[in-house]
Structure formats: C-alpha cells, structure tokens
C-alpha cells in the first residue's frame, strides 16, 4: 500500500460510512418489525424519531460519497507519477484489477443512495409514511453495496506499490508497462457521437414527456442510466480526442484538471445530477399507486424529470461547446 494522506482519508471515510450504516442496521430492522403508524405507543414514537436519524445518516453518507468520488479521481490522477507509464488517472486505476471496479462501485453506491433519498423524500411527504418498511428494507440492501465498494477500494489501495528507486538494486526495473497508458478501450468516434446525441435527446425528451403527461417513468430512468453510460463512452471516444488533441489520450478525468480549465466539472456535475434525478423518477414509480402517494409521486417525479431533462440538455450543450472550442481536429488513433 502507498501510505499517503488522500488514501488514508478515503479509507477513513469509507470505514466510517460502513460503520455508521452497520450501526444503523439494527435500528432499521427494529423499524421494519415494529412499525405501526396508527399506534401512539411510546415505542412507535421512538421509532418515528429514529427515522430522522436514519435519513440524516443517509444524507451524510451520500454527501461523503460525492466528495470521496472526487477525491478518489483526484488522487488517482496525482498518483500517476508514481507508476511507470501511467500518464494520468486512467493509468493509475489500471495499476491493478481493483481500480476501475472500485470507481464503478462508488458511482453505483452514489446513485443507489440518491435513489434512496428520493424514495425517502416521497415517503415523508405522505401523511401515513407508507414506504417505511420498504425503504428500510432497501437501506439494508444498500449496506452490502457500501461494504463491497469499501472492500474494492481497500483492495485497490492495498495492491498499489510505487515503482521507486531502491538504493540497493539500482535502476531500470521500470520495464515498459503498456497497459497503463490512457489509451482506454474507446469506441469509434463518429458512431459514438451519433449515439451520444441521440441518447441524450431521448433522455431529455422522456423527461419532458413525463413532465407534461406523467407517463413513461420507467423510460426516464432507463434512458437516464443509458445516457450516463453513453456520455462517459462519448467522453472516452470523441470529446477527449477533440479536447486533448492526442490520438491515444482518452482519459475522462483529465478534463477536471486546470490544464483544461476545469471543463470536466461543467460536464460531470450536470451529468451526475441528471442521472440521479432521472433514476429517482423511476425509483418512486413502483409506489405511484399507493393511495397516499397518488398525488405526491407525480409531483416529485415532475420536478425530478424537469431537472433531468434540463441537465441532460446542458450536458449535450457543454460537450458540444467543448468540441467547438477545440481546434476541431479529430486525431484517430
């Protein structure tokens, strides 16, 4: 393992999050077993108060995941100088088999947590808290994901070993490691570009449709998920080529760096927001027929769908702007 601050911070954060959620699990089980909204018993009052704790806890974990995700990527970028052949974050993440799985697991946890918070929000708007059992069951399901993400991250960091000169055995152990370049497996630019704009248009369209007619919630969620994947693929495949002007540089993270004037934030923040909102529309859809949620779900769904649609349009606009601002040279590798 490489012993350095950001890694310690990330491990600390995931440890604390897992610990807190583990400690909360018995409370959640207690609520699932004994919840009775119609009772005014002291136990019920206590359970009700605990729901506040659990919501706060999840918000905290969610916020932590968000910052941790950023730090994880930053850290990967910084560490690239420690590994032979690694030019940027992609190389560092490829140093061992756990890098990208750890990153993906964190993104998954992030979206699961955001969906949970949407369900939670909807539930607290209904007078009889109809989803209490469901949402705490979901909370228990979230736990293994969080643990898995933490484990992957731990394995990744434990497997890191810097290629460092040791005075005894001299140098040139640094053999060429071709796998660590930023030449990620990217799809061909032109078809990807078409798919990218098409998917984003469809996702935004589905959002608008839901806003107007409250229909096709599943489609909103599905297309949002797809749009997320396609956008990342698009960055890998063509946005990076235009921005970096280098045929083998497909890194989706370097966009976040000052060299590229932090353009990445403009792309990724709306993307994460849009995806979380779009997935949220789908997450609450199974409960649309619950009597006390009949008006709540469409109202919340509309707001989320609007956010998703607007943000996907923004993503497409930012990506287009990044391309137009570049010198429009497409260097295919």
């Amino acid at each position, binding site marked *: 393992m490489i012993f350095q601050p950001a890694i310690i911070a990330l491990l600390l954060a995931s440890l604390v999050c897992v610990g807190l959620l583990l400690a909360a699990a018995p409370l959640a089980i207690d609520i699932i077993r004994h919840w009775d*909204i*119609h*009772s*005014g*018993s*002291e*136990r019920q*009052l206590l359970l*009700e*108060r605990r729901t506040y704790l659990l919501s706060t806890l999840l918000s905290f974990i969610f916020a932590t995941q968000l910052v941790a995700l950023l730090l994880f990527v930053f850290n990967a970028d910084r560490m690239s100088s420690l590994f032979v052949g690694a030019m940027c974050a992609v190389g560092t993440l490829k140093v061992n088999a756990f890098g990208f799985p750890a990153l993906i697991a964190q993104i998954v946890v992030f979206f699961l947590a955001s969906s949970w918070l949407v369900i939670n929000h909807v539930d*607290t708007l209904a*007078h*009889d*808290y109809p989803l209490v059992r469901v949402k705490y069951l979901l909370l228990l399901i979230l736990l293994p994901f969080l643990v898995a993400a933490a484990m992957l991250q731990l394995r990744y960091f434990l497997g890191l070993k810097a290629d460092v000169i040791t005075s005894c055995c001299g140098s040139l152990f640094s053999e060429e490691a071709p796998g660590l370049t930023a030449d990620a497996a990217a799809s061909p630019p032109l078809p990807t570009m078409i798919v990218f704009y098409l998917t984003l248009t469809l996702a935004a369209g589905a959002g608008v449709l839901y806003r107007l007619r409250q229909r096709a919630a599943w489609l909103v969620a599905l297309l949002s998920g797809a749009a997320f994947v396609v956008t990342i693929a698009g960055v890998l495949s063509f946005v990076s080529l235009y921005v970096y002007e280098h045929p083998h540089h497909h890194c989706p993270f370097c966009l976040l760096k000052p060299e590229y004037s932090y353009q990445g934030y403009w792309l990724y923040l709306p993307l994460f927001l849009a995806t979380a909102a779009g997935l949220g529309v789908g997450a609450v859809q199974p409960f649309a027929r619950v009597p006390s949620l009949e008006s709540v779900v469409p109202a919340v769904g509309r707001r989320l769908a609007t956010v998703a649609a607007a943000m996907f349009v923004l993503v497409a606009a930012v990506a287009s702007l990044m391309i137009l601002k570049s010198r429009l040279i497409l260097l295919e590798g």
Partner: protein
Amino acid sequence: MIELKGIHKAFNTGRENEFHALNGIDLHLPTQRVTAFRGPSGSGKTTLLSIIGCLSRPTSGRVRLGERDISGLPERFLTHIRRQTFGFIFQQFNLIKGLSALENVMLPAYPLGGNWRALHERAESLLGDLRLAHRRAAAIEHLSGGEQQRVAIARALINDPQIIIADEPTANLDTGLAMEFMAILENLHAVGKTVILTSHDPLVVDATIVHQVIDMRDGRIVTPVPIAEGCA
C-alpha cells in the same frame, strides 16, 4: 371543532414507574368559544391540552380537528397542522433569552419561510397592538413579567392561528396583570378565535368570558360536559 374519543395517554409503559395521565377522555369543543380546564395539578389537564394542541400524540383514542382525523399522523404533519392552527401561551412564557422581543415573536414563522419584510411588519403590528412597540428591540430578559407575557401572546398570534391554547396563563401574574390578560383574551374571542386554557385561578375560571369550565381529576373529566351547548 375539536373532538376527542377515548383518549388515553400513558408514560413509561411496561416499566415500574408506568403512569397513566389520561384515562379515557371523550370531549367535544366547539369553535369560537372560550373553554377552561380546571383541576388540581396531576389531574392531566396539561397533558390533555398538549394532545388537543397537537404537541403530543395520545397512546390510544381518536382526535378530530374539524373534518380531519389527526390521530395517526406522524410528528412531522402534526407540527405542520399545529403551526397553522394553534397559538401557544405557556405558563413560564418560554421566551428565548438573548433575543429581542421582535425576534421572539417572529420565531414560529421561521420554518414557514415567508417573506421577511411581511413577517417583520406583522410582528411589529402585533407588538404595537399589545402596546409593546417601544420595547421591540429590547432583549427579552430586560422586560417586565407583564411585558414578557404580552410578547408571548404576540408570538402565539404570529401565524394567525384559529385556536389559542394557554396553559395556566395567569399563574405567574399579579391580579392587575391577570385582569389585563383576560381583557386581551376577550379581544381575541371578539375577533373569532377559539380559546382553550387550563387554570385553577378563580379570576380566570369564574370570568364571564369563559363559556365552559371542565373539571378534571385523575385523568378523567368529572363534570358532565354539556356537549350540545354552544355548538355552532
């Protein structure tokens, strides 16, 4: 209209110090009336008042507020109803030290997030009505007992509630101030507010503006309640 059916309230259930504050209350309180609960301390009148005012939930029994059954509502919604429907005047005034009179009055409106200027004006006019305009910037601990109570009344009125709830409002006041309080109460009734209070002060319960006095003992109502009377 407030209707209570079979209200029980128990504390420390299942433990040695289990205690039943209310043992089956059936009650019907009409609107725009002044109702007083009378009884020795420990008779359950404050507990009953807190259930009527949505400050707590009964262990069992049903509560209706207007047309709405609010018995099974979680705290979050009880609070929403409470801050729109009820204004509270407490025995100890319960004002926050260090804040000015004006800030104390505005406090219940903060969670509603309304326009600041409008809120400010409303609070000032309430303080003006209660002859406290000149004291609005003073810190609460620099006010006299009577002034403090009038701040508490202004605070109870800031969200324009239909029902005013007062728990032993005159217990900490001398006779003069108690009379003054009753006059304010009369004004509130005159503008159509419902008033529910607890007291064992004869000055209060024997006053002419009190339409109905309900006697309580051991968590039960002792006087037969004339349900039909004054039912609007």
